[in-house]
């Protein structure tokens, strides 16, 4: 998992509440055998005017000009500004995969759905919760200033404007913060105990050789 410490990124707005994982990545794309390549299908039903299926050449599909992420000013955005209960619905881990594959490293919203929250942590996508009032203000900023960026400092637990005129503090559980800062996914965490696992395995092999052969 990639380490997350300081992100200075372009912000894109997703101005609706209760965006569910089916909207984030529609179910027909779950048949893939990969965990990458979902980027073009992030918000597929909103992004294109036709119906998408896996295996299509998505670069040739008709784009919906009204969809916010299709606007030129938001190309290359790494921070998604969202409304409450983002990521509700099915448990698919493809939702954070798709967001990250499309270049997002951080989502800022007033609240997130539980499973999406956990799945994001497993995959190194930072979710930041700010108050409704702060989020309103940020939506206003994004709309008003093309090229609006935010600096997300995980170490200091702050989201600030590039001129540091406004600094929002956010909470994150220490364990999750530790994992993100060190690029430790669940596997990385377990592997901190690699010596213990090896010792257990050796002991088991001596006692019951038929199990580990």
């Amino acid at each position, binding site marked *: 998992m990639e380490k997350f410490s300081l992100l200075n990124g372009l912000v894109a707005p997703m101005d609706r509440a209760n965006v569910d994982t089916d909207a984030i990545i529609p179910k027909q794309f779950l048949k893939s*055998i*990969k*965990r990458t390549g979902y980027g073009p299908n992030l918000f597929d039903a909103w992004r294109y005017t036709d119906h998408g299926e896996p295996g299509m050449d998505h670069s040739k599909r008709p784009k919906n000009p009204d969809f916010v992420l299709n606007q030129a000013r938001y190309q290359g955005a790494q921070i998604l500004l969202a409304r409450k209960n983002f990521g509700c619905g099915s448990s698919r881990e493809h939702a954070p995969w798709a967001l990250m594959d499309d270049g997002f490293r951080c989502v800022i919203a007033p609240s997130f759905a539980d499973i999406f929250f956990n799945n994001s942590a497993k995959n190194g996508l930072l979710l930041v919760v700010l108050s409704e009032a702060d989020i309103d203000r940020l939506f206003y900023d994004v709309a008003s200033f093309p090229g609006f960026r935010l600096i997300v400092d995980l170490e200091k637990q702050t989201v600030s404007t590039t001129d540091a005129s406004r600094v929002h503090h956010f909470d994150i559980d220490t364990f999750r913060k530790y994992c993100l800062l060190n690029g430790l996914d669940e596997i990385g965490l377990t592997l901190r*105990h690699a010596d213990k696992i090896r010792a257990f395995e050796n002991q088991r092999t001596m006692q019951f050789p038929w199990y580990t052969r």
Partner: protein
Amino acid sequence: MGQTLYDKLWNSHVVHTEDDGTALLYIDRHLVHEVTSPQAYEGLKIAGRKPWRVSSVVATADHNTPTNDWHLGIAGITDPISRLQIETLDANMREYGAKVYFPFLDKRQGIVHVIGPENGATLPGMTVVCGDSHTSTHGAFACLAHGIGTSEVEHVLATQCLVQKKMQNMRVTIDGTLGRGVTAKDVVLAIIGRIGTAGGTGCAIEFAGSGIRGLSMEGRMTVCNMAIEAGARAGLVAVDETTIEYLKGRPFSPSGVEWEQAVAYWRTLVSDADAKFDREVTLRAEEIVPQVTWGTSPEMVMGIDGAVPDPDREKDAVRREGMERALAYMGLKPRTPIQDIRIDKVFIGSCTNSRIEDLRAAAAVAKGRRVAATIKVAMVVPGSGLVKAQAEKEGLDRIFREAGFDWREPGCSMCLAMNADRLEPGERCASTSNRNFEGRQGAGGRTHLVSPAMAAAAAVAGHFVDVRKLG
């Protein structure tokens, strides 16, 4: 205080425990199939990791493989996604390796939960995982078997451990002797009918009592297979002579001195007499009759001599609504006798009931009879290539064919309809599989879960009949 079998298995695999009780559990056996492994292997690759212990992996392709036209080879798989999953498993096996891999078309290929035990790759005292919820099957061998998700598959590949919290201990005791024509499938359906699909949530269920002791290993696997349908992530049966007899001489069973050592250890894999269970349920074997599900959840089940229940008589509003929805989906009227339900298709197979004993039971009913003219297809899908070969050696294939059944190649087949075998909307099926959920066997398809003998009897009659009365 004494320990339960689950306690013993748990304690012997804990590598490390966090303060909150979360443990790292060492995994002995990792069963891999084509549907839930691709992203796990890709994740390994992206992170630049290697599998921790390749010798733990036993792999096969089963969910997507076709059950006919094997002479066409991989070209016979027309769905490009199914084909890609199978080819990806081939590629991952080439790159990463395994203790053994039974690819599509191999004579030992089969449903992952059938091939593990029959090859002696599932042994008492092990922890077994697989990216499939019916991994509970393997608990019949007194091993701790968990179904896991794709992220966990990757985690086990990379670390040989599973992050787990300990479950509660539950014991379901079946006392007495099963009546003639009553099988392990009827036992487990009756249990689910009693405790409900959430009855075992958060528990490991140990199945015990003379009714379970009297079952063959095949029967015990059928019971543990459906532990997950009762909400339990793991099912268990203690080791006894039947277990040990079954394992003797299997390809991956220990041999020589090691066999003796192993058996001595395995005999300790029983719950202590003074062990305490968090929950206990007891059923009388004599009271269990052949079962048929009538709804869209395995707990919606009835004895063959019963009738479809009437939602109007259900006081609980939520349950009533669930029953009404199920009956609408199933196209059934309240109070219809189960024996009057006519069917269109019959499926004998799946990791619940596709072992040799299941096929023998179905063949015994089919012998000298004919599939009813109203049945569109009655297919028998052996659980593995070895089961198929054994059945053919015993002439069961001939019995089935002469009776008008289709005799197919091994795989999951119409259990979940990922390959070409499926129900069309509205079609009604007597199925020996484990899930009667809406659309499980094909969109709009209607599934009734039964035992192999009951499925064969329904095929012959064109509707459900009491197999005990066939003579």
